[in-house]
């Protein structure tokens, strides 16, 4: 597969197949980023599709002199998940009953190993609950670095910060997560 820069350039020149390859290369990472905010399943899949449609519509505005393509794409993703999460919260507040989970039964992919899927779902849920409790910046750095798999430089570009700031943030974010997810273990380490 060609590198991203060549593919994006080719897509800007009108090559649909090149954009298709960009889609294949980034789909999973964008999906995981969205799933960290809204849970696995249809909602995250919708957001992922919308991210790529928006990217397609704005593709000619992407400039190679600016932030890297991954950073540009994840800025779109970030704006969309924030927007969706806000709507979801508003809708949940408006209903009198208990809020319906976004990641419903549809969230389980078509895999035969149901037990494994249930365990994964539980882990992801625990992670999402912990992410709800850390600061916004800590959450974003965890999502970009460890869920979407962005490099330090790409994360810095998405968050408009320098790389040293991102290093410090990832340190504090992992510490915060550790304290939330393994409080007993971390109590021995963190005074």
């Amino acid at each position, binding site marked *: 597969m060609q590198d991203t820069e060549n593919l994006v350039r080719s897509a800007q020149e009108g090559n649909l197949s090149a954009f298709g390859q960009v889609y294949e290369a980034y789909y999973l990472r964008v*999906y995981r980023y969205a799933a960290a905010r809204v849970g696995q399943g249809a909602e995250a899949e919708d957001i992922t599709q919308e991210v790529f449609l928006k990217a397609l519509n704005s593709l000619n505005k992407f400039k190679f002199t600016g932030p890297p393509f991954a950073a540009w794409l994840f800025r779109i993703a970030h704006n969309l998940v924030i927007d969706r999460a806000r709507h979801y919260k508003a809708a949940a507040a408006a209903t009198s009953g208990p809020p319906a989970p976004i990641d419903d039964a549809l969230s389980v992919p078509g895999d035969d190993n149901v037990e494994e899927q249930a365990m994964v779902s539980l882990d992801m849920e625990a992670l999402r609950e912990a992410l709800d409790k850390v600061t916004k910046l800590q959450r974003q750095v965890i999502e970009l670095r460890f869920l979407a798999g962005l490099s330090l430089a790409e994360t810095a570009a998405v968050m408009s910060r320098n790389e040293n700031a991102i290093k410090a943030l990832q*340190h504090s974010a*992992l510490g915060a997560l550790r304290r939330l997810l393994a409080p007993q273990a971390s109590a021995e380490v963190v005074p």
Partner: protein
Amino acid sequence: MSTSDMRVTEALNDCLELIERGSTLEECLERYPDIPDELAPLLSMALETQQTAGSVHPSPEAQRAGLGAITEAWAAMEERRRRRERGPWRLLRRSWVLAAVVLLVLLFGGWTTATAAQDSVPGDTLYPVKQTQERVMLVVVFTRGGKADLHARLAEERTEEVVKLAEMGRDPVVVDEVTQRFAEHMNECVSLLGGRLSAQGKASSGSVGLSGPRGMAYGLSPDMVIEGTLSFEDRPRRFRHEGRFVRPWTGSGSERRAAMQERFFQQFQQFREMREGLSDDLIALHRSRMDEAFARSERLLLEAFLVMRELEDVQNPPE
């Protein structure tokens, strides 16, 4: 952050990169024998998070459907493009034809549209009209001074657009683009007046240079006093500016440079106020990007301001 915290921060990032390249957790910890107890839990947390993410998969149907939606959207875009090319508006794709049409509109009664377009911002329907008006103006102004004035006015216009876009809560990507165009106008303006900006973070060369790691060093006090250091022919000079100049301006171009300094300074103040007025409601990313855009513009204006002053001192050395 303490020194030991900073060491853990650096070691953590180093280990994450090593693991990404295939090292094991144990190999990483061996590299930092003095801080294994601090590093190990953080690295484990990072790896567990990555493992959890690695187990999350979308349905293959959704991925295929998404590709289908993209193909449809692509086809629709192509169709729209073809229709534009076939229609009578295709002539307007030539910039000189578009410029001529806008000129005619301006001359023969299109004032309503033209005036309405003045208030438009990127993303508005009338914004292309405004852009074309600006291109026409740049074509019809012939002198270097006139063009510099015009670029300064257009930079000011971009400042106002940034304010409006920020107030409207538009996509920060658009704000970035307008900030970039603001920088281009500033570069053009200063260059037409004989100076050069180190806008790319690189020290400028030639007759006017700015000292310091990013081409200049400056300090700001809360009461808007600007202090800067400029180097000219390797001789550093310090400057202090308190809003207005009292030294009389003489000689060719002085008046214009004085006017430019005032203009740049006012815009600088405007960006500072915008930064200070950023709403607390803005989400963190939005806020940090706006902040960054404003800070970049501030730096640029300050440099432009100081370059104007240096040019003036070169032509009319202070006694």
